């Protein structure tokens, strides 16, 4: 074999092997970060607003909700455990490829000294970012030398995943949430007092300069240098005292740079019984409230137009449909009454809730708070489950009409006019609520048909025989009258 032939073969081997490894790396890579943020790096699209922060922002700001209600295009580049130094580098890389009208940064880690929290979280934030000089600088700045190779060549850490390859590894889909992560659980309300956190250094001496604060300064200066407005925010959560102290530094920093600061904790918008996943994080009900609050604020204070009817943004309406399908899937995947009630805080759909006389849910503060929260979404009045458990309770939350109707009685048949049709209400022989829609008998058995789909026949029978059905919930598509979910508990 002559030297020329050998070189050709060498090059072919190199190219083919690299292609094989690239393909393998694609299959084996950890997808969390990619499914969340790859759309941002892959598309040429411009965004009105970019959000940065930790899990409070990932779970607390819903770009598609912002689109639906305000016509604002945005992307949530926050991530769990993401510190402000990581935010700074992500912002820098983002501003190299996008021209947003506003950057929103959360201040949660402002008093932290460390540049990163958990190495795996940094992977989620940086793995999807295409290789660039900025990415290399970020890795060198944020991480210890022994971890840097894993970020420059993520295959070095993910190749071992060949041991757990399943069909899912070959079916990678992007999240329709534009970087957000909706949490569809309701945390047990905390009755214990919030533990005291020693913030005396902050309270007594004012701002203590931390590593994260230095990076926040760099982020603000970068935005000012590029002429991009920046808004500092503190996402609301259940430690309001703590958060109020925490935000002292943010207020001073905002004042120093003459940038606005919105303290979410000070707005009292969250209901701790319904809007939290845990003490520190919002669930999707809380996220909708915080997102809409930000939407109002941004629409009022920045020159960002509503693009919902702009033909150039038609793809966002299509994306919203994909997001809606995702939400319906989620609606049908929760099996917990509390989670289902929490998901009713969504203008996307309307709902009916019935509670049988004698049910233990009467007088249950948590249940009452969740029904009330769902009703508050309609905007006009609230649902209040009465404390008297001797009568049946029936409630219609009509989000399209912005109306809540409550019916209390011994089971007398009744009719209600809703934005999705006339609902006929009655009880069957076992005392279960039966509904008809627009007098159609086809829908009389609505619930049982769905029961058969949702639950095994045995379970339904057991529940019926033992008379255990205390609460029934219907979720309607208020444009078509289609039942999206029915469950009995």
């Amino acid at each position, binding site marked *: *074999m*002559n*030297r020329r*032939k*050998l070189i050709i*073969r060498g090059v*072919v*081997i190199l190219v*083919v*092997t690299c292609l*094989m*490894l690239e393909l*393998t790396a694609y299959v*084996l890579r*950890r997808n*969390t970060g990619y499914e969340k943020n790859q759309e941002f790096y892959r598309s040429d699209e411009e965004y009105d607003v970019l959000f940065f922060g*930790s*899990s409070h922002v990932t*779970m607390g700001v819903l770009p598609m909700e912002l689109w639906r209600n305000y016509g604002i295009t945005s992307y949530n580049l926050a991530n*769990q*455990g993401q510190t402000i130094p990581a935010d700074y580098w992500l912002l820098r890389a983002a501003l190299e490829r996008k021209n947003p009208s506003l950057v929103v940064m959360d201040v949660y880690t402002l008093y932290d000294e460390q540049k990163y929290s*958990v190495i*795996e979280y940094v*992977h989620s934030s940086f793995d999807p970012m295409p290789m660039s000089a900025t990415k290399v600088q970020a890795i060198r700045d944020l991480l210890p030398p022994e*971890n840097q*190779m*894993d970020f420059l060549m993520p*295959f*070095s*850490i*993910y*190749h*071992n*995943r*060949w*041991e*757990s390859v399943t069909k899912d590894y070959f079916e990678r889909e992007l999240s329709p949430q534009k970087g957000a992560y909706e949490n569809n659980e309701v945390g047990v309300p905390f009755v214990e007092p919030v533990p005291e956190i020693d913030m005396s250094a902050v309270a007594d001496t004012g701002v203590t300069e931390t590593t994260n604060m230095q990076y926040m300064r760099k982020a603000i200066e970068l935005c000012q240098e590029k002429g991009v407005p920046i808004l500092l925010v503190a996402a609301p959560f259940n430690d309001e005292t703590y958060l109020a102290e925490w935000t002292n530094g943010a207020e001073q920093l905002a004042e120093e740079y003459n940038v606005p600061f919105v303290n979410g904790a000070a707005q009292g918008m969250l209901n701790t019984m319904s809007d939290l996943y*845990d003490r*520190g*994080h919002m669930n999707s009900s809380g996220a909708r409230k915080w997102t809409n609050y930000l939407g109002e604020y941004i629409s009022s204070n920045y020159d960002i137009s509503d693009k919902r009817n702009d033909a150039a943004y038609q793809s966002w309406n299509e994306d919203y449909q994909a997001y809606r399908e995702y939400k319906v899937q989620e609606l049908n995947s929760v099996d917990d009454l509390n989670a289902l009630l929490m998901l009713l805080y969504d203008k996307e759909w309307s709902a009916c809730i019935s509670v049988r006389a004698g049910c233990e849910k009467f007088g249950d503060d948590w249940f009452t708070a969740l029904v009330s929260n769902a009703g508050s979404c309609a905007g006009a009045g609230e649902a209040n489950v009465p404390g008297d458990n001797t009568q049946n309770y029936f409630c219609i939350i009509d989000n399209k009409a912005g109306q809540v109707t409550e019916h209390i009685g011994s089971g007398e048949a009744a009719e209600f006019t809703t934005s999705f049709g006339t609902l006929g209400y009655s009880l069957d022989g076992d005392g279960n609520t039966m509904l008809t829609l627009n007098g159609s008998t086809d829908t009389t058995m609505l619930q049982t048909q769905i029961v058969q789909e949702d639950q095994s026949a045995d379970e339904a029978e057991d529940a019926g025989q033992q008379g255990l059905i205390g609460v029934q919930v219907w979720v309607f598509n208020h444009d078509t009258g289609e039942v999206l979910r029915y469950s009995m508990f």
Partner: protein
Amino acid sequence: MLFNSIQFLIFFPIVVVIYFLIPKKVRYIWLLLASYYFYMGWNAKYALLLLFSTVVTYLSGLALEHVKNKELDEPAKRRGMKICVAVSFTLNLGVLFWFKYFDFAIDNLNMILSKLHITLLNPSFDIILPVGISFFTFQALSYTVDVYRGDIKAEKNFLKYALFVSFFPQLVAGPIERSKNLLKQIEKEHSFDAGKFCDGIYLMLWGYFLKMVLADRLAIVVDTVYGDIPQYGGMYVVVATVFFGFQIYCDFAGYSTIAMGAAKVMGFELMENFNAPYLATSVADFWRRWHISLSSWFRDYLYIPLGGNRKGKARKYLNQLIVFAVSGLWHGANWTFVIWGMLHAVYQIIGDMTKGLRGKAAKLLGLNPSSTANRIVKIVVTFVLVDFAWIFFRAESLSRALMAIKSIFTVFNPWILMDDSLYTLGIGRRSFSVMLLGLLLLMVVDLFKSKGISVRQKLQMQDGWFRCAAVCVAVWFIVTVGIWGSAYNEASFIYFQF
């Protein structure tokens, strides 16, 4: 830098490309520079030790040559030459002792002194063992002896000699080359040889497979068990010890094979260091197949000078005990290694003493010594003996080794071979299956080798594009399935903690 590091994968192609681009006359200088750079990747300061050993043995060679050519009477000449050898050995072994055995010697001295109620010595030296010191010291010393014996002439060119001692493919873990072989090749000018180049690549790939796919995977299981013998007793220890036998084979043979391959890519032929050792039919046979460059070193430079088997049975047995005890010490400064070495000597002595008896017994039972069944039995018995000795090699201390042995005989849990217990030792079912299939492949290749069939040669005879495809698949497989990079922890990734 290690062979399985990113640094080496960058370093090696650069060295090779430049090596073939520069004029042949200066290539050895380039290799010398590369070798020192390679060694300094661990600790730049210790390159001075390498240089020291090189200078001492180089000068001893010149001095020996000088004395040889001097017009002296034979006894005076002998005396002069012995002084040269003694100086070279004293200085080299002195350095080796200081860095490798000083702490061990002090610990033992302290133990003896404490029994006599004498105050202990408290050395305040924190000595880090320089990488490969045992290998390059022995290689350099073999040169002194070879010149003394007149097997080769002393090398005049210091740089060429320095390359012989520091040649990077085999510098830190062998094979321990002989001056007769390697120095002569350094003298020669090497043209690019596509056949050797490809063969070298195949060797390297096989070495990487042994090291990254097998040895490092076996190590996970072995470390889990040997790290907690009280928890993993009985059959776990048996399995881990069998795996350790293969781990050390794959690790060491893997390294040697990569070394041979890397040298071959540049046109150098290094000696074969392993020859299907677990197909040996006796312990003596095992040592003809295992770490051949070291065992032949001990044979040529220690066993034979001690008298070998020329001075009667008793002396032969004593020589064997000495050689294997020293061999054990060479592997590490710990009594566990000494016992490991001496166990091998005892095996061979008992084997020799019972040879006649075993022959008579076989005759009485009508066993055919050349039958396949007899050969298989011998292979299995040899493996069991060798593997038992590995317990001492692997355990951190004598007490741990004894604990492991005791556990084999006192903890009864053979069911772990049948249920899924073995998959809880650090690697899962798929990884375990790959490991077992890999070991099967290794044994098949070794079997072919023992029959004189070279898989590499068979591959060389295939069509060029087939070979290219084979290389692509091999690289892809090793990189994907091999153990390298940061430990991946699916749990820490999956766990969604805010």
